[in-house]
């Protein structure tokens, strides 16, 4: 297995002491029936680090990040998120879900609720925030994703790019420590990709810990602290973007990059 070390040395700490990683995955295995989706995944993500995961379809990258907030379970190994170990204990799972935001490929907004209600739902019911306060919070984040004027519309009335920005704002309303992105721009029309990536770049600039599955290599180059390449359920290569793009070591990585960067 490739050694996956964090590049950012912002908080230098001796490697032998128990460092508190934001995300710590230790030898995680997952099977769908007989199919071995994740094979011995070891990955540590530092506070404020931005990690971009890429790889061919079916390589397990979405499954990997969905394990982190327990949308998928795994059969072997350990995942520790901000000091809380994921177990079958629902309390732990809920505690982790409160700290981890996720943005899906297909937005998954609640179509029967207005934009503002989509945003207020979790703060009101999960954080028990007063409605007025939740509304202010929601408006703050809608302004941050630059669509406050859409607050009272329904998701079905927005464009794909706007919906995805609402989805990002919805996650941010829970004030997460980590944001997971599962191919956030793959379902978008080309002209809407930029508006979503801009929001993500801003988020990265604010120091959010981000783990992002994407094929947007331009975005990866500007934002990522570390690139991870997955194939057939394994982490094949992990490197800083400069090194990853200019000088990939593994030939599978080289092949993948040549396929997606050719055009």
């Amino acid at each position, binding site marked *: 297995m490739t050694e996956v070390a964090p590049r950012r040395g912002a908080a230098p700490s001796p490697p032998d002491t128990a460092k508190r990683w934001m995300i710590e995955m230790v030898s995680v295995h997952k099977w769908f029936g007989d199919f071995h989706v994740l094979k011995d995944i070891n990955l540590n993500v530092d506070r404020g680090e931005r990690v971009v995961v890429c790889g061919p379809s079916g390589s397990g990258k979405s499954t990997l990040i969905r394990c982190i*907030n327990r*949308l998928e379970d795994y059969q072997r190994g350990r995942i520790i998120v901000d000091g809380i170990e994921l177990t079958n204990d629902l309390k732990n799972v*809920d505690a982790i*879900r*409160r700290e*981890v*935001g*996720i943005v*899906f490929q*297909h*937005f*998954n*907004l*609640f*179509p*029967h609720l207005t934009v503002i209600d989509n945003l207020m*739902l*979790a703060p009101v*019911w*999960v954080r028990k925030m007063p409605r007025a306060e939740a509304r202010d919070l929601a408006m703050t984040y809608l302004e941050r994703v630059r669509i406050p004027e859409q607050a009272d*519309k*329904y*998701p*079905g*009335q927005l464009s794909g790019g706007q*919906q995805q920005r609402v989805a990002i704002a*919805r*996650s941010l309303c*829970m004030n997460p420590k980590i944001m997971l992105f599962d191919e956030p721009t793959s379902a978008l029309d080309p002209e809407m990709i930029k508006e979503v990536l801009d929001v993500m770049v801003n988020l990265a600039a604010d120091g959010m810990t981000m783990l992002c599955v994407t094929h947007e290599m331009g975005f990866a180059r500007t934002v990522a602290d570390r690139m991870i390449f997955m194939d057939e359920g394994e982490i094949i290569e992990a490197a800083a973007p400069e090194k990853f793009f200019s000088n990939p070591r593994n030939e599978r990585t080289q092949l993948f990059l040549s396929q997606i960067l050719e055009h």
Partner: protein
Amino acid sequence: MVDRADPTVTVRPPRATVGVVGWLRTNLFDGPWNTILTVFALVLLASIVPPTVDWVFLDAVWGAVGADVCKAAAGACWAFLHEKYRLILFGRYPFDEQWRPLLGVVLLIVMLALSCSRANWKLWLGVLWVGGLALFGTLMWGGVFGLAYVETSLWGGLPLTLILSVFGVVVAFPLSILLALGRRSEMPVVRAFSVAYIELIRGVPLISLLFMASFMLPLFLPSGVNLNALLRAQVAIILFTAAYLAEVIRGGLQAIPAGQYEAARALGLGYWRMTGNIILPQAIRLVIPPIVNTFIGMFKDTSLVAIVSLTDLLLATRQAISDPEWRAYFVEGYVFIAVIYFCFCFFMSRYSLYLERELETGHRR
């Protein structure tokens, strides 16, 4: 191509496609086959409508006259209804007290009407229903405030039909939601119970359930415990409707994309929050037409309680036409209650369309 040289000239559609002539052409005389059908339909209407109008209005006997007058007339004998409408509408409820069920029915209808508008779905409506039902019960039973006590075996007609239907809806609906959720539950015992309940109840005709509730249940109860006959029939109707409705709602639940569950869970919502705020509102909206369908069926099925001797609208009508003097005028009686049943059912079906439009929130993805 349209000539666009002069933009001030508006191009009109050809005359023959607009207006009355256009409508007639496209809808009634669009080709030989269509023309034949139109002519046929006109002939049919001409042979049905005038005799019906004659029977219902022109040749009919109105007002408080005896059955002998009807015998001489060719048309409908509305005098029969004049004579018997109180028996049909209120059954064997004491004659002088029948203002009470009348007031009760009006009260129920007003509450139902108020519940229709989405703007009224507030806390006060729930309070109103609790208060309204208490008042309804007081009116029907009496025994307080100087009202004479009337036992449930004397209740009948429209109030009885409405009681069975309204309580059928109000209790069966939440029960069916629990059953539908139970059938999709990950807990084996809950799931097995729900499946067994739904399949058992659905596999049995309502009539046999009513019989069981009326005649077999008392055998199993300890002596001295005497469950009210109306209550037993009501429970049978509720259990029966809930089983059907549960499957309808399960259909709605299955149409909700997995992404909705994932998004709700990822935000940290628990099972009941997720179900109540995210899944059910969408699932139920999707299945409004079959839900209303089930309710309409249930409303008409309440007439089956006649076989356990509850005097609902239908049995009250049959009692009215069993009067030897008026025996010949059963058609008038059945037309009368058919109109009543139709009004309620038609209203339900229109309301379901309104509700669908009202809850539409743009395109689903």
